[in-house]
């Protein structure tokens, strides 16, 4: 059975990724910068991530959200309660100082993703390069992953859809979330729709395992914090400019 092989390989892949360690500190890893060839399988040589500088994120601007939803064919249907939102703009207000911060929040592409742990069928999975996806072919729509995700990153499709985009299949009764523009990454593009759309350059996309990448350099310089870091999920999306 071909599928079993895939499953096994996926499992081994995850195991070895965990083994290799996911340190994002600059290290002695020597890597070539160019992306994989189109017919090559993804490997744990990369770990893709995003760095978001909340200081640069404008209040009221939703360019990244619109770009994402345009890119992935997400349209308004029955209202905000049930419509999918792969990325959303969150406004934070400090409870004491009333300091205001703005930032986009999407799937954090956790290295230890609770959504993957709880998924009964294995539909939620982490690719070798750290991108967390839903295999909608085997998702049964139980929504347990949505219960488990600490960031409310996932959406359930509440109605029949049509005219999905070729690179972004989505359908009724299954769960989905930000794919980190996986179709672009597989094409070798070193960016995501949201990153590209931000007028202030508040978002940086890149390989967390490559110490020479822009994202690693910025992280090394100014640090970056995980949302709900206490849960120790080792997220692939990091934030700058949040003081406690």
């Amino acid at each position, binding site marked *: 059975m071909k599928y079993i092989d895939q499953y096994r390989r996926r499992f081994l892949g995850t195991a070895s990724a965990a083994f290799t360690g996911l340190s994002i500190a600059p290290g002695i890893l020597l890597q070539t910068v160019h992306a994989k060839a189109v017919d090559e399988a993804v490997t744990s040589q990369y770990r893709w991530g995003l760095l978001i500088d909340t200081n640069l994120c404008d209040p009221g601007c939703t360019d990244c959200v619109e770009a994402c939803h345009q890119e992935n064919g997400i349209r308004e249907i029955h209202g905000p309660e049930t419509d999918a939102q792969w990325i959303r703009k969150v406004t934070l207000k400090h409870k004491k100082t009333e300091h205001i911060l703005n930032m986009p929040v999407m799937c954090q592409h956790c290295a230890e993703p609770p959504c993957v742990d709880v998924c009964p069928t294995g539909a939620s999975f982490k690719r070798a390069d750290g991108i967390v996806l839903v295999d909608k072919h*085997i998702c049964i729509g139980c929504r347990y992953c949505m219960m488990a995700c600490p960031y409310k990153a996932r959406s359930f499709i509440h109605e029949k859809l049509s005219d999905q985009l070729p690179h972004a299949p989505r359908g009724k009764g299954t769960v989905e979330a930000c794919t980190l523009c996986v179709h672009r990454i597989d094409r070798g593009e070193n960016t995501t729709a949201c990153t590209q759309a931000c007028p202030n350059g508040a978002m940086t996309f890149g390989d967390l395992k490559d110490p020479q990448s822009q994202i690693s350099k910025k992280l090394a310089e100014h640090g970056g914090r995980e949302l709900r870091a206490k849960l120790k999920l080792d997220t692939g999306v990091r934030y700058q400019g949040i003081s406690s």
Partner: protein
Amino acid sequence: MSSPRYQTLTSSPAFLASLIIGFVVLGIAAIGAFNMEHEGHYITGMSNQVVWGMPHVLAIFLIVSASGALNIASIASVFNKDFYKPLARLSAVVAIALLVGGLAVILLDLGRPDRLLIAMTHYNFRSIFAWNIILYTGFIGLAGVYLWTMLDWQMEQFKRAAGIAAFSWRLILTAGTGSIFGVLVAREAYQIAIMGPMFIVLSLGYGQAFYMIVIGLFMDNKQLSEVSKRLSRLMGVMIMCGLAVSVIYHLSNWFLFDARQFELYLLNSETIFPILLWGIHPVIGCILPIWLLRSGSGLADSQKLTLSGILVIIGGISQFYALVIGGQSFPMPLVEGYSATSSFFDGAIVSYTPSLWELMLGSGGFAIALLLIVFCLRLFRLLPVSK
């Protein structure tokens, strides 16, 4: 002690009425399920914020009750109490029926119920949910074998072993069901240390409540008068234990897990939850049935048992509603020290109102359980004959 004799159910009015009600409700549930399936979940009250709604409340309640319903049989075989032995067969049947009813509701609420086959063939063994699927199927099998050892005298020798196996399994199963919530580290409402044990204790009372309704409806009066006193006393103890563990749950949230904002939301806010948790659950679901079972106020035994069973179940459903819906509608913190707002209801308390479709689907679980019980009562000798 002479071995008890058993009889099948006759075509009593209660039998016919149960059949009719069972099938009507089942039909209504089918319409609800079909419509939800056809249209998608937007026609329900569920959303991307409250992802598990009324069907889950009812289904989880049924599943937890199922394991508790086996309790009467366990007292008889595992703890060797002769008094309960004649009551054991029925207890196993009620347990299986409730579990099947609950599972049917969970299944039909899936986004893709057509993928049952995938759910049965693809297992992620790190998922407590996947383990529960195995636990549930195993429970139906074990309780079935146990029932067989009770029905077939040639199997008599295996009865105790089967009883012990089923009893141990049901403990794991109930703890497993609690852990479905317990493992959700993201949410304050659910802590692994308390969810499993709490579900086990709660299951005892709720399972017995269903059992009492069944015997109240179908057991003849003479036989009932022999058992009702002991069962009533047992029920009283179970209800009190359930209430105690519920108090412990809230106290530990408050003192141990620092989930005070959440507790205030559940117990002191302008939502439905304080009504459920201060009113319906303790008063209608605990005090009233205990009073009813003790004093009885001139009701027949059958009426007492059935009525108090129904009250306990109403209380139980209220409690589960607060637990499941309350736990989801309360916002999760995103960054400590900050309050959050967004287009996706960050930082906001979300409202949930179950739609008619969900209620229809959920009631189907009860109908399936009722029909299964009635069929088994008619087919097998489950009801003890009074000496």
